[in-house]
């Protein structure tokens, strides 16, 4: 580069450099965020892709060829169907019980000032910060001591236990922003307490309760560690996958994983849409 061109370009160069630097700086974060999202979805892409794989051996780790057979026969593997059924039953029952119990606790914590509320908060908080393996191990010890045979019942007990805290936290977030004048208005118009609760309070906090129930359902259906310690001979879907990972990984597992994923996303989208429509109407 000669001295003359340098002198000609000198006034412009800082501006160009600054503009380029500004461009990089403005889009650096965008690029980083998009890369992070790509990273998040990479394994999901693999799961979905391999649900269409036609594996040669017992393991579904290398791409062999495209087939729709796995999707046509999603339960065509011994034990898979019953494992899914057990998972769905436990997820349904545990989220139902935990949502009722957790909503009651949230109502008590937000609406009343009482002796022992600090201790209750602690009791809600500690299970969420305890490693799953410790909870699983302690429940196993309990059932052993009380000579309770492990199976469907003990899994259900465990799932309700770890779900309660999440329900309380979710419903409480909704209750804190609640306008109590609406209840007072209902009472002024002659509604008794029970009618007020059913017709005013419950519909208003329903989105929070629904979100809590969905969260509990998702946590239950995905739980492995605590279930593993307390299942006895009962097999849930995650336990089935764990067992399969040692001997053979059928592509049907990917089919079910993809299906759960799609259903969960649909449910969450529906909840988001429902809430935004409610907000618009209000």
């Amino acid at each position, binding site marked *: 580069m000669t001295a003359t061109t340098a002198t000609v370009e000198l006034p412009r160069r800082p501006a160009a450099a600054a503009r380029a630097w500004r461009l990089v700086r403005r889009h650096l974060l965008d690029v980083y965020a998009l890369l*992070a999202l790509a990273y998040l979805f990479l394994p999901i892409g693999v799961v979905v892709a391999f649900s269409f794989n036609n594996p040669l051996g017992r393991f579904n780790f*290398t791409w062999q060829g495209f087939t729709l057979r796995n999707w046509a026969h999603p339960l065509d593997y011994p034990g898979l169907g019953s494992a899914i059924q057990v998972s769905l039953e436990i997820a349904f029952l545990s989220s139902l019980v935990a949502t009722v119990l957790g909503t009651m606790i949230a109502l008590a914590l937000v609406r009343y000032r009482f002796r022992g509320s600090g201790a209750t908060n602690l009791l809600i908080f500690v299970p969420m910060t305890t490693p799953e393996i410790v909870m699983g191990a302690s429940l196993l010890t309990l059932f052993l001591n009380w000579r309770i045979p492990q199976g469907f019942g003990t899994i259900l007990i465990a799932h309700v236990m770890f779900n309660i805290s999440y329900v309380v936290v979710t419903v409480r977030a909704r209750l804190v922003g609640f306008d109590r004048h609406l209840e007072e208005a209902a*009472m002024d118009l002659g509604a008794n307490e029970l009618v007020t609760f059913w017709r005013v309070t419950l519909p208003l906090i329903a989105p929070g309760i629904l979100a809590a129930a969905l969260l509990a359902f998702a946590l239950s259906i995905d739980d492995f560690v605590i279930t593993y310690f307390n299942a006895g001979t009962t097999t849930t879907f995650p336990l089935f996958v764990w067992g399969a990972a040692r001997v053979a990984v059928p592509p049907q597992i990917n089919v079910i994983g993809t299906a759960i994923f799609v259903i969960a996303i649909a449910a969450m989208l529906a909840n988001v849409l429902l809430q935004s429509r409610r907000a618009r109407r209000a």
Partner: protein
Amino acid sequence: MDVQGRSLTPRRLPLGTRPYALLAPGTAWLLLFFVVPMVYLAKMALSQGLFPLFRFDWAWSNFTDSVSAYRTQLVRSLEYAGIATAVALAISYPLAYWIAFRGGRWKNLLLLLVIAPFFVTYLIRTLAWETILSDGGLVVSILRDIHVLGPDGRLLATSAAVIAGITYNFLPFMVLPLYVSLEQIDPRLVEAAGDLYANRVVSFARVTLPLSLPGVFAGVLLTFIPAVGDFINAQLLGTPKQYMIGNVVQSQFLSLRNYPTAAALSFVLMGAILVLVLVFARALGTDRLTAGAAP
């Protein structure tokens, strides 16, 4: 709110007992199936004997014996979980920042996108990483071609694979609290810093970052705790050379049926977590945390 609450609930149950009636079933469940089991686990940690006959006799030596026997796995767990938490923070903070400040009307949808991958069952996600990192996979062959890995180099069965798996699997626990605290920040505060001649770096360091510290604290906690007790990633993506304390507890409980050792290790794990959390809280500054939490 309390006064209003009392004013509209005059009949039936006496007021004082009403919250307790609401609390009773749920807290009873937690007491019976969370607190009581912990007591039994503590008793087991101080017991001796062979399955199924364990005898409680204040066997404190269980703690010292199990720690000296499994120190490697214990240290490794803290190390893996620490690295995974740091990497998760490095990935999540810019992502959460981007959604909170650049997301606009797409915020909720973007957040849904971030959580969505975690609706694929945990174990299936980890198996997918096994596929991605496998010896015949694309990642390994590219890394071999550019000589980052030797011709026989592997990704599976290494510490890196286990840490990568842990980082990935607990990412939402980091992103969500970060997002919540970043989203609450009033953008006018950042603007004000700019008006007062702070450049973008300074206004981030002096305004945005301190205000987001509660989210950092919550995210680190919620990621580190499940990470340090994890055994699935080490089992599926590693070998016994990468086993963590969770693998030990799991096999001691479910295969070897050496309950006292496993119970003692569980409490050592919880104690280590508690100490680290307290140290971390002190390092971040609890007063600054509460100051940041106030709107």
